[in-house]
């Protein structure tokens, strides 16, 4: 990072605001009798700095997520997150690959394919255009008999677990340009009438190592996504989360054109060391 003049910053791990994303649950901490939140990522803090003209920055710190415990999930993990001004998501994928090779010299060759090509290869349909009912049908055909939510993002996640992940156990790739329902904080564009989100993930042996965005800079769209998140949270029976007003202020002030990515450092080190769980990496694990 220092070779490339990317400045290290160290945002607070506990903050007054949590995150609205319905798939992320913050761990709450009581501070002076008030509910605070351990941060699920440093994203909002880093974007506030970017809007103040920091230029390229990174953070290497713990991130916290409630309800995530498993072979490859721990409620506390190490995240490397960085932002590059003037980059788009393709430029940043190149840099992520360089960093992975720097840490893991015999990492496998990494392909690049679009989300719609990945789904088309394995399931035979285009993930950008496919209808919800088609996804439900595909899940049933794969033997899934549980409840299906009528939500395209949810159904795409289900099919990832049922069909994609088992089929990519020995592959390494960047998958980019996600269906708009899975945009998260990525900017979107419309190509031949079909919207797509400029988000990417690095997936090696079925494991997600990094998630990046060509960042959304539009405060109006950001506010709309926050509201949509809370509508989903209500529908799912989760508590609403107050959106962080300082992020919206930052976008209004003006976020530079940039791409950002978060990389799971523990997962990368576990894979590079040939381990098969995060616990094996941790001398303090039970």
């Amino acid at each position, binding site marked *: 990072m220092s070779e490339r003049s990317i400045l290290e910053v160290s945002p607070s791990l506990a903050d007054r605001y949590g995150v609205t*994303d319905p*798939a*992320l649950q913050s761990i709450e901490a009581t501070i002076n009798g008030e509910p605070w939140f351990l941060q699920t990522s440093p994203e909002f803090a880093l974007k506030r700095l970017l809007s103040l003209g920091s230029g390229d920055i990174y953070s290497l710190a713990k991130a916290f997520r409630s*309800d*995530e*415990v*498993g*072979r490859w*999930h721990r409620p506390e993990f190490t995240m490397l997150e960085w932002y590059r001004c003037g980059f788009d998501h393709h430029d940043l994928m190149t840099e992520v690959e360089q960093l992975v090779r720097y840490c893991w010299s015999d990492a496998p060759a990494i392909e690049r394919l679009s989300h719609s090509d990945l789904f088309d290869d394995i399931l035979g349909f285009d993930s950008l255009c496919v209808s919800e009912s088609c996804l439900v049908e595909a899940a049933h055909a794969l*033997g*899934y*008999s*549980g*409840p299906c939510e009528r939500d395209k*993002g*949810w159904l*795409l*996640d*289900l099919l*990832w*677990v*049922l069909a994609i*992940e088992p089929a990519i156990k020995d592959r390494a790739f960047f998958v980019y340009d996600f269906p708009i329902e*899975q945009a*998260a904080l990525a900017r979107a564009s419309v190509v031949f009438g079909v919207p797509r989100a400029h988000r990417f*993930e690095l997936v090696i042996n079925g494991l*997600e190592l990094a*998630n990046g965005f060509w960042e959304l800079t539009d405060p109006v769209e950001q506010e709309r996504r926050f509201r949509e998140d809370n509508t989903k949270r209500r529908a799912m029976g989760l508590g609403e989360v107050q959106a962080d007003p300082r992020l919206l202020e930052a976008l209004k002030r003006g976020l530079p054109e940039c791409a950002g990515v978060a990389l799971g450092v523990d997962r990368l080190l576990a894979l590079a060391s040939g381990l098969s769980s995060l616990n094996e990496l941790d001398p303090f694990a039970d």
Partner: protein
Amino acid sequence: MANYSTNEFRPGLKVMLDGEPCSILDNEFVKPGKGQAFNRVKLRNLSSGRVWERTFKSGESLEGADVMDYTMEYLYTDGEFYYFMDPNTFEQHQADKKAVGDTYLWLKEQDSCEVTLYNGTPLSVTPANFVELEIVETDPGLKGDTAQGGSKPARLTTGAVVKVPLFITQGEVIKVDTRSGEYVARASKS
């Protein structure tokens, strides 16, 4: 019975799935990036013995199954049912051929074995890891051949056929590993 949520699924937990009692073998938490959480679960159907793999939405729950394992004494069979006794309560349970399956090959009267009860009825029977059974039929032993190499089939009182060394003779009692069906050693005759 209580309900168990996916985060309580542990190997050995007995739950009902599609109306069948199952034992959980493995529970893997899976969550696509920025996505919904699911659990990929392997279960053994305790009636059929088959292994099922199912994906559940995290937080879904299954009803617990009234399935318990008991150590019981095997009493006898009347040809249709097999009878077992709980040595603590002296209560007797009859198991049908489906529940006993191939385990009948290793059942000797008065031996202990594990009986799995589902809603109070035997669902399956697991023999002890090692049993001692008498040979009722095998080719004559070769005198002096106590070295390794060579084996022959021997039929036991239960009908099981196991491979034994050539020096073993009819009427001897041998120790067998029921998990592999293999001869372990000669046993002292009881």
